[in-house]
């Protein structure tokens, strides 16, 4: 273990590797900033340029792009409500409100700090326990994934804003939109109306760019641009009290993100949604969520970074992709003449440990890069919003186009933008719609696979202890406070004062503890 770490440091600390690590995280940050252009595309585009490099150097740089993008994606989410990465959608909810309240600097800083802490914690776990975690993750078959999707959907309660009915309606709309495209299993095209572009479904990255970025622009145009925010530089620096509030959310987010990231295929987007949902449930300040709560930035940002790192566990320990970006990286292994698989740790110790150690170095670079830059980036909001409109529109459309080189993506962005405007006018929450659209196809896949395994009998879910545990957690997440209120009334105490919000602080506290 110590020998391996030393070997890793020896390998990663060469000038060449340090230099390319820096290039990678810098490029990753820029790629994360661009809406639509995510880490998967970024890594795929830059892959050919690394062919002449030493495999370790190349992988260090490509991995740097991956986790660098997790940092970069936050910046535009917070400043202009334009999620740069799918995993940053949730951050827009409270991050953008913080920016409107003049706390953009704090939001960006806590995102960087949370991401860093999450990275270090998850790396420590990765280094110590990658193989056993990878074996554990294999227990997540279709029934367990189905339960996990139910847990994801249960977070709708947290994303609904004032009205649960509106939240549920939007989530259902998202699920319905998620049924468009070729059905898994049968291969039939649904609701495509002969359009080839719709065969792969309604792409959620484009929808999310339209809803959040364009919807906000149209909303601002309609109500008259808001005054630019003229915060003094020192007001943009994060306060000690904000840091203290964020400790627990960062730790919870890291734990949840790590556990979800280990599971092959679930990735960092789901982790960020669930972390936000859980955080809102357990936070003593749940009323502030949606209005600029720093916890609402700290938890999902920690979770998406922890998940990004944990994604490497199945990738390195078993040779199976943890998510979309690690799938591209697995392809890169073959191109460099390395055989990914369970023997990688034994056959290529210098490569594996050098890569893992480079994560430490890269995340440290990102922290050093992002902390001072946070107030600087926040200064961007001094620009009158009117001048930002065209920039947001162009980057949104170019970003959408770059996803699949297809003009169809731009139409989706525009349509979603119009929908986002209408939803804002009628105060309909947007996050549940995105959640439904993201989870819908995953939910359906798990459902179809579970049904295939059980020969049409879905009760096989209850035969799996893991699935049952996850379902119980989902139940607690959705109905925890109500149940707790019931228990307290039964036990004779005069509970219930302060309504459903009152006792919730303590109620589902066992939830994250049980999960972590």
């Amino acid at each position: 273990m110590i020998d391996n770490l030393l070997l890793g440091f020896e390998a990663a600390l060469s000038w060449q590797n340090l230099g390319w690590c820096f290039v990678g995280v810098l490029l990753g940050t820029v790629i994360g900033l661009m809406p639509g252009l995510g880490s998967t595309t970024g890594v795929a585009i830059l892959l050919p340029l690394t062919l002449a490099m030493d495999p370790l150097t190349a992988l260090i740089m490509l991995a740097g792009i991956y986790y660098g993008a997790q940092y970069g994606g936050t910046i535009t989410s917070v400043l202009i409500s334009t999620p740069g990465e799918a995993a940053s959608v949730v951050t827009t909810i409270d991050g953008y409100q913080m920016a409107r309240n003049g706390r953009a600097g704090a939001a960006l800083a806590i995102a960087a700090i949370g991401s860093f802490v999450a990275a270090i914690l998850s790396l420590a776990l990765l280094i110590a326990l990658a193989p056993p975690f990878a074996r554990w993750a294999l227990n997540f078959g279709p029934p367990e994934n189905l339960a996990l999707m139910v847990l994801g959907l249960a977070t709708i309660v947290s994303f609904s804003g004032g009205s649960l009915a509106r939240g549920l309606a939007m989530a259902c709309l998202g699920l319905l939109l998620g049924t468009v495209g070729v059905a898994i299993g049968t291969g039939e095209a649904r609701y495509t109306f002969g359009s080839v572009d719709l065969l792969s479904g309604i792409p959620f990255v484009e929808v999310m760019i339209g809803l959040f970025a364009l919807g906000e622009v149209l909303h601002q145009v309609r109500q008259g641009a808001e005054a630019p925010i003229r915060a003094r530089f020192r007001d943009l620096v994060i306060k000690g009290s904000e840091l203290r509030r964020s400790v627990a959310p960062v730790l919870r987010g890291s734990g949840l993100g790590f556990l979800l990231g280990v599971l092959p295929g679930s990735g960092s987007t789901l982790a960020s949604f669930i972390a936000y949902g859980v955080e809102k449930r357990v936070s003593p300040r749940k009323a502030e969520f949606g209005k600029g709560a720093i916890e609402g930035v700290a938890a999902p940002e920690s979770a998406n970074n922890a998940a990004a790192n944990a994604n490497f566990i199945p990738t390195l320990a078993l040779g199976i992709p943890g998510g979309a970006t690690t799938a591209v990286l697995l392809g890169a292994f073959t191109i460099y003449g390395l055989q990914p698989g369970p023997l990688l740790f034994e056959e290529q110790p210098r490569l594996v440990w050098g890569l893992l150690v480079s994560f430490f170095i890269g995340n440290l670079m990102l922290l050093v890069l992002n902390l001072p830059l946070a107030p600087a980036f926040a200064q961007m909001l001094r620009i009158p919003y009117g001048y930002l409109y065209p920039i947001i529109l162009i980057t949104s459309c170019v970003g959408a186009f770059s996803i699949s080189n297809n003009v169809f993506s731009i139409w989706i962005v525009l349509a979603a933008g119009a929908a986002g405007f209408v939803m804002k006018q009628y105060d309909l929450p947007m996050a549940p719609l995105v959640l439904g659209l993201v989870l819908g196809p995953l939910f359906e896949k798990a459902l179809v696979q579970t049904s295939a395994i059980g020969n049409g009998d879905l009760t096989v879910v209850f035969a799996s202890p893991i699935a049952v545990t996850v379902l119980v957690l989902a139940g607690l997440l959705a109905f925890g406070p109500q149940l707790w209120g019931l228990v307290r009334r039964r036990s004779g105490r005069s509970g219930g004062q302060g309504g459903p919000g009152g006792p919730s602080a303590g109620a589902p506290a066992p939830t994250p503890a049980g999960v972590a």
Partner: protein
Amino acid sequence: MKTSTRIAAALSAAALGVGLTACAADQGGTSADGSFAPSGDASMIVPFSAGGGSDASGRAIAAGLEAATGTNVVVENREGGSGAVGYSYLLSQEGDDQTLLAAETSLSSIPLSQDVDFTATSFTPVAKIGEDATLLVVPASSPFQTCSDVTTAAGAGSVVVAVSGAVSLDEVVFRLIETETGVTFDRVPYESGGEVLTGLLGGQVQVASLNPGEVVGQLESGDLRALCAVAEERYTDYPELADIPTATEQGIDVAFTQWRGFIGAGGMSPEARTYWADAAEAWTQTPEYEEYISSNYMQPVTAYGEELDAYLAEYDAQLATAIGR
């Protein structure tokens, strides 16, 4: 404030207009009389997402063509609809001499199973650069020792197999085995080879059909075992795979090969077709090509021009009988 809002709105609209026009602009291929030479960049469409086998082969071919011609060959991933989106895009480039597409079995299997506007003959085949087959693999702890064990068990009860798509190569393989032996498999649908591998390692499915390049790491580590190769011959060129018997040796007379190569748009000029085929042939003489083939455990079987047309016609017919509806 009113005016500034209006100006901003106008600016936004203008910006959007510029963006759309810029995006809609397309590079045009030109062909001179007599001989063809590309003008500007050529593009290589990959109809699947980055990271998969098709992406790897598309990028390798593009790099090879670049080296052979000195022209930039830009790789574009146009994924979706199990490949249908990319092929449909190529269909819209009718007559273009510089838009290529990294093709394989899906060229025939998509039109056979999905409602699309193209058939296998809508395009101009340029080169086949290699062949790939599949192995039937099981977890190390599986009771199955041979492929006939699998079919016997399927005949007596049920065997759960993984398929990575409604018309994927593994679906074709299982369909062929079913037709040959008269048994039926229970299928669990997945969406990629990586997911299938995960399901197999986790014990959620009993048998999967995967390309050797996708599983060789898990075979070497002993986590998975290969029962048979669904190929005409054993992998004698690859020592780590040479001991795997063919399905035919085990009494199941099924062999199915996937081809990899690239095609051009329909109506591509004969000069351009020859130009790209010559470039591909030049690439197949290089060490880079050998490296590509061996690191993916493929067979260096190539075909160009009329030979390729004949190969594809026969291939299409074979697929149609196997999975046609």
